[in-house]
């Protein structure tokens, strides 16, 4: 089986076969085919191969169509809304930090920063608080005597230590209780991204 030297026509044969040529180009190809045995042979071969390959495995059209959900238009958030949200978050972050710092400078009392710390758990009853007296160094104010009659609850001490970064000052018992606290935290659920449905978030009214 020989090859025609006219590459452009050979290139166009599959398009001719599939009726994808415009009228002018189609006439050019047909004119060439009339005088070229090699291209006629190649076209006949393509036609045979196409018929041979034509049959497709059966598919259940109804089931496939039934699996397609109704169209849901995407909700687009305007750029101004996005900037407003970003500005609000920034203002809250800067403002909250400033208040915490201001309180720390103007007060001679120990600063409990736990309310400002995201993720610190609220105190809960400790089953054995007296087993090991907690260290109070982390919360002692320099101008006051150490509190003896009312020791700080271990959980509060742990939270304060976590917040202020003085975890190294905790006793062994406090560290052990802290580890227990961490271990008792709930794990995040795993996310099945593959099967997740797109979530439509409605824009707030008036924005």
């Amino acid at each position, binding site marked *: 089986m020989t090859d025609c030297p006219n590459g452009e026509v050979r*290139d166009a044969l*599959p398009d001719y076969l599939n009726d994808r040529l415009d009228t002018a180009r189609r006439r050019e190809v047909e004119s060439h085919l009339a005088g070229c045995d090699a291209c006629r042979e190649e076209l006949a071969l393509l036609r045979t191969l196409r*018929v041979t390959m034509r049959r497709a495995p059966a*598919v259940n059209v109804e089931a*496939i169509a039934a699996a397609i959900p109704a*169209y849901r238009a995407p909700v687009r958030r305007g750029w101004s809304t996005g900037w407003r949200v970003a500005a609000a978050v920034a203002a809250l972050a800067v403002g909250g930090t400033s208040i915490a710092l201001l309180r720390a400078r103007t007060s001679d009392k120990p600063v409990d920063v736990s309310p400002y710390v995201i993720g610190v758990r609220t105190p809960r009853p400790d089953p054995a608080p007296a087993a090991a007296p907690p260290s109070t160094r982390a919360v002692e104010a320099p101008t006051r005597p150490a509190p003896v009659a009312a020791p700080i609850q271990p959980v509060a001490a742990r939270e304060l230590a976590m917040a202020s970064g003085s975890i190294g000052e905790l006793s062994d018992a406090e560290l052990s209780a802290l580890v227990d606290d961490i271990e008792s935290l709930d794990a995040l659920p795993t996310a099945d991204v593959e099967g997740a449905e797109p979530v439509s978030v409605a824009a707030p009214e008036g924005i």
Partner: protein
Amino acid sequence: MTHVAPTTDERTDLDLVARWKAGEQRAATLLVERHASALARFLASIGARADVDEVVQDTFVRAFASIDGFRGESSLRTWLFTIARRLVLDRRRAARRRGEHVEVQEGDVATEYDALDGVVAAETRERMRGAMAALTPTQREVFVLRVNEGMSYREIAEAVDTTEGAARVHYHNAMRAIKEYLDD
């Protein structure tokens, strides 16, 4: 230079997409009826045998779920072929990670090419099957899209993630290999 005219089907595809987006679920069914067989044929040609039905369904579900990402720069069919091919590759990668054997068997691919009964003689059919099976996977992929689906090189390049020039070379190499096989 090849002049490829947009088909009536391509224009109608966009109309059907618009109708589906307007709430006409029947339009989606018409699109499935129009393209499911071609997708199944293509998937079989690249060796996705057992799960053709599943991959075709997955292709349509994903395509319709992200229809707003379809800009109409290519035909809807080309876009569907692109999605289908990526799904097959993803499945093969996942199977490899699970330690499953996923090598495509050339003989298995060839058996998907069943002739229309009575149109092509059995002997010719066997020779054509053998010729197709002798191609490399990429040559076969390109050749099927070019000859069977009538795609342009630009559309093939998009569907199989290659360049237009490379698609043209793969097609002509495939054509030469088929002729050599049949001449032997």
